């Protein structure tokens, strides 16, 4: 799958936060590549700089030094149109029906509305929410709201989806279900996804690649391909290979 030019290329990225004159090194020497179509899981303890890295990728944060390049000659990338974001909270607009919530990015980008509406219906079906188009967010469960947020991130057909602990607020059972759903959506929609989590099994289960960060300041501790076949199934979690991967991460994070 390796191409000459990766879709995302990060090299030696360093980020310092300054608050009240105090400097805080949040990310040091972040270096990794992501191929187009990969689902990369960024895993690390709380406060290690995962969100910071994601915001740098989204173009929301500046950085002190290093290189961030997204897109290649083969896969051109327009930062305004090619990023979809999913956060820990669904952040749906309470006063909009689900369909209109999904349409928000299309409205902001000024995409043709009739076609977007059609696409929104398709996406809601894809995330298993057909029939909820005209409901309000409060009429949906947390998991359903998060699915709607995923549909919203896909509406403008971005090439890159950035997800920041999207299932962190869900209960364990819903979370497992959403993991399977995400894998299905990823395979159908053929997107590149960067998925931030502090769930170690979640990272291994979802990722085609796992990048492990350690805290204070964020340091790249490991970066490996997950050689579990697709489609992934829940019983893979009990396989020996899966155990090897999770143990490897626990070891790096000093949690054995």
């Amino acid at each position, binding site marked *: 799958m390796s191409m000459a030019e990766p879709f995302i290329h990060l090299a030696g990225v360093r980020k310092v936060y300054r608050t009240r004159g105090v400097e805080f090194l949040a990310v040091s020497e972040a270096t990794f590549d992501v191929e187009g179509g990969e689902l990369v899981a960024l895993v690390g303890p709380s406060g290690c700089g995962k969100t910071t890295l994601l915001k740098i990728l989204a173009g929301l944060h500046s950085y002190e030094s290093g290189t961030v390049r997204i897109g290649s000659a083969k896969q051109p990338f327009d930062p305004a149109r090619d990023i979809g974001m999913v956060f820990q909270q669904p952040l749906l607009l*309470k006063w909009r029906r689900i369909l209109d919530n999904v349409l928000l990015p299309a409205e*902001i980008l000024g995409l043709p509305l009739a076609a977007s509406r059609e696409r929104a219906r398709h996406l809601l079906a894809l995330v298993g929410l057909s029939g909820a188009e005209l409901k309000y967010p409060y009429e949906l469960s947390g998991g359903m709201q998060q699915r709607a947020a995923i549909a919203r991130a896909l509406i403008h057909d971005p090439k890159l989806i950035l997800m920041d602990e999207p299932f962190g607020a869900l209960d364990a059972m819903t979370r497992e279900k959403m993991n399977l759903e995400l894998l299905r959506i990823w395979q159908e929609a053929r997107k590149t996804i960067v998925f931030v989590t502090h769930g170690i099994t979640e990272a291994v289960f979802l990722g085609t690649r796992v990048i492990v960060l350690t805290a204070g300041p964020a340091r790249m501790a490991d970066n490996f391909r997950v050689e579990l076949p697709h489609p992934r199934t829940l019983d893979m979690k009990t396989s020996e290979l899966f155990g090897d991967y999770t143990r490897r991460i626990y070891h790096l994070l000093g949690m054995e």
Partner: protein
Amino acid sequence: MKPAGETTGMPPAAANRDALQRYSFAVIIHLLLVLAWYLFVKIGQVPKFVMPSPYETLHALLVPNYRWAENIAVTSVEIFGGYVLAVVIGIALALVFSWSRWLEMATMPLLVSLNMIPKVALGPLIIVWFKYGIGPNIMMAFAICFFPIVLTTARGLREVEPELLDLVRTLRGSRWQLFTKIQFPGALPYIFSGMKVAAILAVAGAIVGEFLGSDRGLGYLMLQVQVTLDTAAMFMAVILITLIGSVLYLLVLGLERLLVVRDARLQ
């Protein structure tokens, strides 16, 4: 913007029955209050000038000298006029603040200090400056209900989820898009909570204005009949003032129901 069949976790028929029950209870409890009032006056042999019976109170409406219709109209104009003025100017000012940080920094602390002035204390000044009449009483109602509207609107416009800002920024959305799609609709529940508080204050403002100086209105009438000890008329005036306030409040509540999705409403 309201859902077609607002769910309360109950099937519509049961929800309707629940609502009907609520309204019936509300009506019954008010009727009971009137009954208790009647019994208290009758059994306790309370003199009419201390507390008139419900019937005597109603009877006061028949005194043509009191010009009820005109007084009701005057007081209503003062309340609604001051209120509408406060809503329009209050919301407009808060919008201007949200667009200009500089202006907000310059003006907001001033507004907060001015809010500390007991507006009622301005009454005598207003009379010195503008004489008495409907105009100054509208100003009184305006002065007292303007602040809660500006302050809550400004607060609502500030309360945007930082991550929603991020979302709009990644899409290179404009300031105007952020305002129309997220900031303003998000502020509506706050605006209405300010408007509800203000609706009650507007009534107080107009009446205090009439007490301090006026030649018409229900507040003015109360001072007149106080002299002749016509307590029944005073009761009637208080009831009418309350009704005017209730109409205003219900109008605001109805508008809120129309414009704000149930879940987004502030309690």
